[in-house]
């Protein structure tokens, strides 16, 4: 029983990480039709920013930990917004070229991170409490899992509130449905593009700092390895659907943990799940029926 609880909570934590990456990917794709390959780099950059900050302030203090989260999120947001403004925007409506540019950016940035921080893991320090465990239904759960799950839940709520209650949110929701019609109402939808990139970058940067605590280290490939699972999550959830991304993140994270523990094949089970979903529902769990069979 305690193993099951531990696996479930850990899987939920992993799912939370996936969601922090996938939410941005899915929003960006939904509004702009762009698959952002550089999203993993926003995460890695956020993680390194947090790492540098805690290294300077002393990683075991709570204020430093919180500051690193804020900094990671801010760095992710700025990097993402700049990417949109400087690269994506020039290729307005040219989706494949936009994907290619993000591919180039991810190659270049990962190499740059290797140049700056080396390819070995950079180990992070955290407040002692994060490394301790808490009893839950007989299982000893590492505390960082709770922080991760809480943060992802907050991000989900934050994005939902933003979409529901702000004018940009209104534009984004409308744009996901029918971008051309939004411009035909006199709205410069490109401003919303920068905003979704920034939101996605914020979540990814935050996710980067949290991921560095989940794994205990940062490496230049941190983002890339999470990105692939985030891609799978967005396809399973349905491209462009935030709710789908949330559900699929949890499903994939938990399934992966269980499959890893009992058979040691978590990654493969996830790909099988993807194949299964594609065969049964090519558009994903909550995707629009646009994708053809």
């Amino acid at each position, binding site marked *: 029983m305690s193993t099951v609880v531990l696996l479930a909570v850990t899987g939920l934590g992993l799912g939370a990480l996936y969601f922090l990456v996938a939410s941005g990917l899915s929003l960006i*794709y939904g509004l702009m*039709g762009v*698959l952002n390959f550089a999203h993993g780099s926003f995460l890695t950059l956020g993680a390194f920013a947090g790492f540098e900050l805690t290294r300077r302030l002393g990683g075991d203090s709570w204020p430093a930990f919180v500051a690193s989260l804020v900094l990671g999120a801010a760095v992710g947001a700025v990097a993402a917004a700049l990417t949109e403004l400087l*690269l994506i925007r*020039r*290729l307005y409506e*040219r*989706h*494949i*070229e936009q*994907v*290619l*540019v993000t*591919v*180039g*950016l*991810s*190659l*270049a*940035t*990962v*190499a*740059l991170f*290797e*140049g*700056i921080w080396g390819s070995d893991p950079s180990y992070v320090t955290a407040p002692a409490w994060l490394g301790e465990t808490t009893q839950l239904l007989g299982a000893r759960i590492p505390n960082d899992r709770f922080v991760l799950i809480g943060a992802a839940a907050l991000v989900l709520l934050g994005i939902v509130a933003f979409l529901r209650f702000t004018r940009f949110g209104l534009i984004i929701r409308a744009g996901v449905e029918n971008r051309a019609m939004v411009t035909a109402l006199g709205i410069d939808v490109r401003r919303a593009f920068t905003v979704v990139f920034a939101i996605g970058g914020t979540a990814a940067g935050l996710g980067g700092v949290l991921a560095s605590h989940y794994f205990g280290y940062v490496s230049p490939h941190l983002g*890339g390895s999470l990105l*692939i699972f985030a*891609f*799978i999550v*967005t*396809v399973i959830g349905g*491209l462009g659907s935030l709710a789908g991304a949330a559900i699929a993140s949890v499903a994939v994270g938990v399934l992966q943990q269980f499959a890893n523990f009992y058979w040691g094949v978590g*990654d*493969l089970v996830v*790909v099988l799940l*993807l*194949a299964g979903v*594609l*065969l049964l529902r*090519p558009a994903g769990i909550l995707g629009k029926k646009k*994708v*053809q*069979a």
Partner: protein
Amino acid sequence: MSAPATRIRRLTGAAWFPFALMVVFAGVAAVLPLLAIDIPGVLPGPSYLPGTLQLLALCLVFSALALSYHLLFGTAGMLSFGHALYFAVGAYGVGILLQRTELPLAAAIATTVALATVVALALGAVSLRVAGISFAMVTLAFAQAGSVLVRRNAWITGGEEGLRLDTDNVPDFLVGVLNTRNVYWLALAVLVLVFLVVIWFERSRAGHVAVATRENETRVRVLGIRPFTIKLMTFVIASALAALSGTIYFVLQSGTTPRATSADLTLSLLVIVVLGGVGARWGAIVGAFAYTLLDQRLTALASSDAVAALPDVLRIPLSEPLFLLGTLFILVVLFLPGGIAGTVRRAATGRRTSRDARERLEEAER
């Protein structure tokens, strides 16, 4: 329009022209090992040296691989992020067969390509349930699963260590540094073969339908043809050719590491095809040469003393070849959408091609 430009276009448009070009290319390439050609800054040494031939043979292998990707992406408009998987099936397949069975090399290669065809048929059928960006992500996921399998099953793949070439059943003339030029010729032969298969497919009825599907899938459906079948066929042929390239890569490198399975390789492939010019057969070959040589040169530059002496802001970016290649790639996409081939064609014929190149790219999305 100037007369020379028209003449050039009539010449390059002739049906036999690609073959003539290939004959010239293969002829020149074939005699290189017998000559002492040295291009400082491009080649590491004179062309008869095994080190240089090894690098050139790598260019040939990547050209063949890039041609197979051209078939997928340039001709049929399928943006796959998992093409490396079939290259890896080729490399690991032939390696494992040579190690575990008594099959001679040729039979091992044939078996491997057959195996890759079966894998491509199964995974292609699933991946092609979706199109466009979803297809890209799904192929990436399958390739990633392949990568995980290779790394996990060290008992047969050698895991992170990689797999060495077991030379027991390999003909002697392909073994050893001194025989590098034979392997080089083998790579050249395979490139020519892949080239012929690609042209044959592109000029077949199926190839025309594949192009039509890329341009306007609805119209093809209206004609009563199932785009799925044609796409799957293209996918399988491209994958089989990639696997063939992988087998030669394995022989050339005397082994492989798990890097051959990684997403990085597919991304490099994308860089090659876009750098060369999407939709251009010769673009794929030129791109592969440019990329491989550049990668090698930049790696040499990265570890040079000159770079080591620079201040950090210059040293760090310059010591990362992938940083420079990635940046170059971004610049090509932004400013040279037709790649090298498009630029050459524009210069030779005076025709604007960047617009065609852009439209061609976008067709992959639909």
